[in-house]
């Protein structure tokens, strides 16, 4: 069985002896590698930063070895993995933290049922919300569902722990969560490659009393889950997942995940107890560790998960008193906390250079097919319930045509609620991307028709999951491995649901967008407009003849800048004190939307600039 704890040492041994291959892997690639080495047969995911590369990477392994697929949403992806596990093979599904909310319904019951082939969930948290709507701590889900949560600290451990997770899953008859964070998923470090384990299918096991989640069965299973927790605790007590690094007698730190690396960086002289799993806790070891040093701190990111457990065990420890519950931990934040705690005397010197440079917030791409949509939408002065994707940027200036955004697929349901609240004279509009529509937008559209809501739904079909880097989905007609497959026809689905008013418009035709939106909001009932145009970046990077501004005609009204196109900025010329505009010729992709809205008609094709 893999021993994750000694990863660094193993690295050196390996380099010295037979020289197995060492590669620099992103945490996500290492997880995929670990799953492949463990003989995984089925891998599924719905994309979500920072987890997306796990399945992309798994899809680079031979198709005979592993079936890697994009699923419609996280719950479907977990259900597919569960089915594969029932079928007797090792299965994995990967998701970002909020994806687990979607998949949790199945997880909760599957915890009672257990597994046949190993079942591993990879859950990637995003402390600091680099690209997420919240920073929930998924470890709490592990406790809630009573499934083990392994927490690797670097790419080598990410591979080793993933492999181990499959073995633990089968040995203890439980799904296992491997929890990553952005900092691990997107950090590259060396990984020693291993061979693929030949895992032959166990075949389906016909045990209805275990596999069918009926109250009568579940009542029997629940106590078994509690016993399992106990066995897992015993396992953890003896497992090399837990590593005790003796140091100072005065001061000890209990830590795990990438937090361990910060601890080693900042206070290597401390006694360190590195936990490989946040649930269940290696209680005996933790007690002995705490007894062996005078003062113990817990260094963990986000919620005080371990701290609370230890308190419940009656152990005196400190933690969140000194370290924040929000955001990412870092060496400097850890150092500051330890300084406040009186453990570190001095803070290192830093440069006394503090200037506001310039803000560079994320923006829509040049020629983004969402830009015209929101520009047009703003003029109809509607209440807009938004959704999650690149188009959420339509909420900020200068597009600023989104009033609320909560979670994937929520827009249509919220619009129905808004309409039922009957609290506004404004038309009520929901905007939703193609992938988000498929993820969780279809049930609320059914709800809208069923409950006869007066709303307009704009389906922004840019033929890809753009936000997460351009993955395929059921509406693109291609699979994760790029093979052709049936392409879901949105219009047919929407019609079948019972929507009577449907129109498809070209997202680059700004005039049609204005007109069609106006018509749609006039319609009494559910109206759907499909704004159709591929994303400028994926699957194909679009680059057409660029447009340029005829400077003598520009009246500096800056109307075109309302499109939020990053190719358009100020030129050095002024008109009546206002800046005229210019178009960056390498950035412009030639979508023509700015030319369409220019009241002075001075934005024109630059044939000479065609590439």
């Amino acid at each position, binding site marked *: 069985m893999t021993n994750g704890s000694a990863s660094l040492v193993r690295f050196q041994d390996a380099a010295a002896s037979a020289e197995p291959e060492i590669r620099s892997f992103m945490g996500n690639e290492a997880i995929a590698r670990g799953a492949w080495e463990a003989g995984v047969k089925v891998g599924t995911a719905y994309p979500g930063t920072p987890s997306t590369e796990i399945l992309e990477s798994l899809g680079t392994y031979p198709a005979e070895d592993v079936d890697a697929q994009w699923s419609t949403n996280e719950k479907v992806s977990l259900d597919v993995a569960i089915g594969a596990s029932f079928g007797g093979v090792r299965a994995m599904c990967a998701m970002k933290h909020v994806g687990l909310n979607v998949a949790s319904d199945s997880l909760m019951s599957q915890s009672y049922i257990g597994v046949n082939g190993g079942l591993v969930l990879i859950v990637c948290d995003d402390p600091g919300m680099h690209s997420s709507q919240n920073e929930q701590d998924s470890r709490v889900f592990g406790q809630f569902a009573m499934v083990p949560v392994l927490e690797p600290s670097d790419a080598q451990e990410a591979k080793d722990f993933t492999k181990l997770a499959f073995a633990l899953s089968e040995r203890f008859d439980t799904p296992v969560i491997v929890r990553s964070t952005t900092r691990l998923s997107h950090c590259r470090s060396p990984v020693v490659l291993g061979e693929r384990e030949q895992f032959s299918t166990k075949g389906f096991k016909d045990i209805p009393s275990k596999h069918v989640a009926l109250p009568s069965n579940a009542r029997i299973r629940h106590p078994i889950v509690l016993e399992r927790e106990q066995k897992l605790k015993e396992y953890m007590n003896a497992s090399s997942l837990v590593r005790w690094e003796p140091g100072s007698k005065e001061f000890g730190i209990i830590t795990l995940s990438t937090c361990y690396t910060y601890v080693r960086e900042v206070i290597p002289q401390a006694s360190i107890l590195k936990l490989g799993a946040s649930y269940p806790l290696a209680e005996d070891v933790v007690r002995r560790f705490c007894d062996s040093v005078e003062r113990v701190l817990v260094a963990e990111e986000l919620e005080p998960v371990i701290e609370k457990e230890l308190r419940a065990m009656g152990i005196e420890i400190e933690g969140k008193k000194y370290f924040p519950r929000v955001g990412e931990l870092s060496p400097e934040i850890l150092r500051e906390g330890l300084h406040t705690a009186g453990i570190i005397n001095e803070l290192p010197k830093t*440069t006394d250079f503090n200037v506001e440079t310039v803000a560079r917030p994320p923006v829509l791409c040049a020629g983004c097919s969402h830009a015209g949509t929101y520009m047009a939408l703003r003029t109809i002065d509607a209440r807009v319930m938004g959704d999650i994707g690149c188009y959420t940027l339509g909420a900020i200036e200068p597009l600023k045509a989104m009033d609320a955004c909560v979670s994937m697929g929520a827009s249509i349901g919220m619009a129905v609620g808004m309409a039922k609240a009957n609290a506004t004279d404004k038309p009520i509009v929901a905007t939703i991307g193609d992938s988000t529509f498929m993820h969780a937008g279809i049930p609320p559209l059914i709800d809208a028709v069923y409950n006869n809501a007066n709303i307009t739904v704009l389906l922004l079909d840019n033929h890809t999951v753009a936000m997460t880097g351009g993955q395929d989905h059921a509406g693109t007609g291609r699979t994760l491995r790029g093979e052709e497959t049936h392409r879901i026809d949105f219009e047919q689905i929407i019609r079948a649901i019972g929507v009577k008013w449907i129109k498809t418009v070209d997202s680059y035709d700004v005039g049609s967008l204005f007109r069609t939106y106006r018509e749609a909001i006039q319609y009494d009932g559910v109206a759907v407009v499909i704004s159709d145009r591929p994303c400028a970046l994926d699957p194909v990077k679009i680059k057409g003849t660029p447009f340029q501004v005829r400077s003598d005609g520009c009246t500096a009204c800056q109307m075109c800048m309302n499109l939020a196109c990053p190719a358009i900025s100020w030129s050095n010329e002024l008109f009546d004190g*206002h800046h005229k505009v210019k178009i960056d010729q390498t950035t412009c992709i030639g979508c023509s939307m700015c030319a369409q809205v220019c009241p002075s008609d001075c934005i024109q094709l630059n044939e000479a600039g065609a590439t």
Partner: protein
Amino acid sequence: MSTSTSAAVKREARLDTAVAEPTNVLIVGVGGQGVITVSKILAQLCLQNKLKVKQSEIHGMAKRGGAVFSHVRFGSEVYSPTIPLGQADILLALEWAEGLRWLSYLNPDSGTFISDTQMIIPPFSCRDRERGATSNYVHRTLDQVKQHVPNAFAVDATGMATELGNPRTANTVLLGMLSTALDFTVEDWQAIIAQSVPPKTLQVNQKAFVLGREWIQSDKHIAAREHVEEATPPAAPMVDNVVVDLEITEAWCKGCDICVKMCPERCLVLNSNEIVELTDPDACTGCRLCEWLCPDFAIAVHVQKIETTVAEHR
């Protein structure tokens, strides 16, 4: 592995805590410039030299023109994937303002700052439509930087690469400069560059590398320093401060909606009588667009000058 509780936890001997501190290189720039590619090349070079290396980046929003940064740490042992504040040995910036943004990460005593003087002003900072508005792009000269970090170099790498005939080799020029601050051999660098660039561009990339390397080793950077000062945008223009008054002749307005749709500030609406109304006088910049577009001359924009002042860089 055993499940027995009696088995004692393996207490590992402390790894040698006296291992040399890792070398920390922070590479920063703007999405699309190649920050990640440059750091991957460096990381690969370290790996081939049998060093431990960690490279950490946040790239979720990179493609959308946002700030991109990548921490590369290497040595006989590396723990934290991120460089602690004030401990970067080298800050390599592909863009000027990004270099300044991360300056506090540089070791104040021994850090080396190498930055391209290229200035990418985000369109986002050109959103103020008032007369004489300025972008809030930071203006600092190399001399100001030098007051905080002794080893600072600013260079027009993009210009140098353009002169070589391929502006896309700017990053290789910067790698040449970076190479002077690290211990790898020139042969190793050339080999890794050969592995990383398209074969067709190998020759020009090798030249670009040598150019960058020699630039730091010679005293050419003195001349280039003047270049940064030049590259600092000119002083703010004189602006007329004005009051704007919108005169709407209601009787002539037929509610066609053209001005409402076209007002860049969106401060016009049609009221319940289908007549245009100014809803947000403070937002109106007096651009006159509505005046020009109204087919019925229903809007007149009166702009009255109060005084002329120098616009302030914000």
